[in-house]
């Protein structure tokens, strides 16, 4: 039994119109049927582009938005059915770290009061001294000095504010922390500090994370299992290494190939799958496979009529695509929307000064050699073929 299990969770927001007669004219299907399970002590990463519903899903777990349908089973209880008061109490064990560290801290409260508020609400610590002691311990854990207690959020830098946000969650000794874009507002050097901190805390305290982020590299770095979301549903879920080594869903492939890698050798040689167009509106999602309007491998049958379910293709790797196997074997070539050929030509100048440096190009070559060993029709994205 996993610590947190979601089954067929739906969050639909009504779209209302009219002043006198409040009519519901449609629904934004922000989250539309997501099932996943998070094991204790692990990190589940949710990636996707803006508007795919990842934040809404995170909030739905804590019931910060109303769940339209489905179950959120945490440690044996279905949170979706709990009465409000019991839900409030169970939030001690489920905490959240928000994206915008300044916006999520009350500017008029000092750090002690921010951190004590949660303890107050959940009745932790009898005396002020007891609470303060506990707060100091947590501050120390997240790398903030003791005299931060009396200070206000504006006195801290972005990275420090995010540490305060993490401390606020930690002080309640939660089991699960939902981190919504925990580092996207921070500069890269600070990002790394916060990511390391999250990892350390997980190791020391045995925390379970659900990390929501748009940055695939960040998510892959900290997650054990990654779910890729598109328009309110999961299109692929796999252990993090697997997902990178062999992304199966066309959307995941495109997403992976779009992430810039800070290494010119890789950037010059890898193949790009450029998607055309934008995300369709979640209030009127396409029929059939939600991705079929932008999919380079779209087929005339099934794709636009039948919605694919998430099916296990082995090793915990789940994909929602009718033609996974055909695409992986290279039987199907992409039909459209491919970038002008960015394949690594063998004549591209590789005077490789990078080979011996910092040991970082080993994996890069792996990725780069893929297209050469390649699938017919230049389509089977490098990593897709070596599974």
């Amino acid at each position: 039994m996993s610590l947190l299990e979601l089954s067929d969770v739906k969050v639909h927001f009504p779209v209302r119109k009219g002043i006198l007669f409040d009519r519901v004219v449609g629904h934004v299907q922000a989250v539309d049927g997501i099932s996943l399970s998070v094991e204790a002590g692990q990190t589940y990463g949710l990636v996707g582009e803006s508007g795919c519903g990842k934040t809404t899903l995170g909030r739905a777990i804590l019931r910060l938005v109303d769940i339209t349908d489905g179950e959120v089973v945490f440690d044996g209880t279905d949170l979706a059915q709990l009465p409000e008061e019991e839900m409030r109490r169970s939030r001690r064990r489920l905490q959240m770290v928000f994206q915008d560290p300044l916006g999520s801290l009350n500017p008029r409260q000092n750090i002690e009061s921010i951190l004590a508020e949660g303890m107050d609400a959940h009745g932790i610590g009898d005396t002020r001294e007891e609470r303060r002691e506990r707060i100091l311990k947590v501050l120390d854990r997240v790398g903030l000095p003791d005299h931060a207690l009396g200070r206000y959020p504006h006195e801290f830098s972005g990275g420090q504010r995010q540490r305060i946000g993490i401390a606020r969650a930690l002080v309640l000794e939660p089991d699960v922390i939902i981190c919504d874009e925990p580092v996207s507002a921070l500069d890269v050097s600070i990002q790394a500090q916060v990511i390391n901190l999250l990892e350390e805390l997980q190791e020391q305290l045995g925390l379970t994370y659900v990390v929501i982020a748009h940055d695939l590299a960040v998510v892959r770095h900290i997650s054990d299992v990654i779910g890729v979301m598109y328009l309110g549903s999961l299109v692929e879920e796999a252990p993090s290494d697997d997902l990178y080594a062999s992304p199966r869903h066309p959307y995941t492939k495109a997403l992976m190939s779009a992430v810039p890698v800070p290494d010119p050798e890789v950037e010059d040689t890898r193949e790009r799958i450029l998607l055309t167009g934008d995300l369709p509106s979640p209030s009127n999602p396409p029929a059939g496979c939600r991705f079929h309007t932008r999919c380079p491998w779209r087929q005339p049958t099934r794709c636009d009529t039948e919605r694919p379910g998430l099916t296990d293709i082995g090793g915990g790797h789940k994909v929602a695509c009718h033609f996974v196997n055909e695409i992986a074997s290279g039987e199907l070539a992409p039909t459209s929307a491919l970038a002008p050929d960015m394949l690594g030509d063998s004549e591209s100048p590789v005077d490789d000064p990078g080979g011996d440096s910092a040991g970082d190009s080993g994996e890069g070559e792996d990725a780069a050699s893929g297209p050469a060993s390649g699938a017919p029709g230049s389509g089977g994205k490098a990593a897709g073929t070596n599974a």
Partner: protein
Amino acid sequence: MSLLSVDELAVTFTAKGRKDFQAVSGVSFSVDQGEVIGLVGESGCGKSVTSLALMGLLPSKGVRVGGRAEFDGTDLFGLRKSQLRDMRGTQLAMIFQDPLSSLNPVVPIGVQVTEILSRHRGLRGEKARKEAAHLLERVGIPDPTRRLKEYPHQLSGGMRQRALIAMAVACAPRLLIADEPTTALDVTIQAQILELLRELVDQEGTALLMITHDLGVVAGLCDRVNVLYAGKAVEVAERRELFASPMHPYAHGLLGSIPRLDSPRGQPLNPIRGSINDQIAWADGCAFAPRCDHYVMECLTGTPQLTEPAAAGHGVRCVNPVRDSSDLDVPHLEAPVMDTTGSEATTRHPGGEA
């Protein structure tokens, strides 16, 4: 002779009753036709101020711009306002970071594009509309004639950025300055926009000055890269050279802090400690010294100069550059402890910031 050559650009903000603040000091680079030059750095390093100074978009009061910037033989800082207006759009154009706030929300896209065409190319009426539609089509906006009538809020983020690019390239400028053009966009849209910029450079021979914080974008797009820290270029190199052997500890640290999609998992990142608030004035030494793992006593004796210790064309502003990565394993000295900020809650904490 390069198209744009910038020499020791310095921008100082002044305000009554306050100490002058030097946002940029000593940034030099040149851009050729068909070349992509990158300016990289974290927030507060002066990269946007550099671009605004070049476009003449800084306010006239309270700002002192020093150094030289020559565009095809003309001194950009010596131009009168009207001359500068003629240059903008036709010679140099800019793409801003946030497409929504760079477009006028109450004016249809079409009007905003034709405005430029009539100002610089004298096109009117039907002709201007046709050209505008053509421009939108060229940057990959489907159904351009319909889009011309729409307002910015009706377009998606990627499409707005495309419209902005269409406006920038409307008069075939010779130099494009792109200030974080993809930061506000999703990765798949970012890939589309970068591809578009790459096409412009390849096909039209446009010179591109790319300002970004994303080293991944730089790795794929730029020919030469300037890494900025606290208003100075700390490392200047050809991109392969920079990524293969970064020599300035800051550049080295930046590359070590980024989780990479293709690196093996399970290794902790090597962040740079502290934050941008921990810096000392360049006049007293190296601004990066308080955060540096490669710090030696000489770092605190005067401003380090940009030298080329290893290879020609690879400039490093550091007295003790990183020669190979094992260098960094043994910290030479404890970092200098200095209180550089008044208001910040700063005490040093192992692993913590500041």
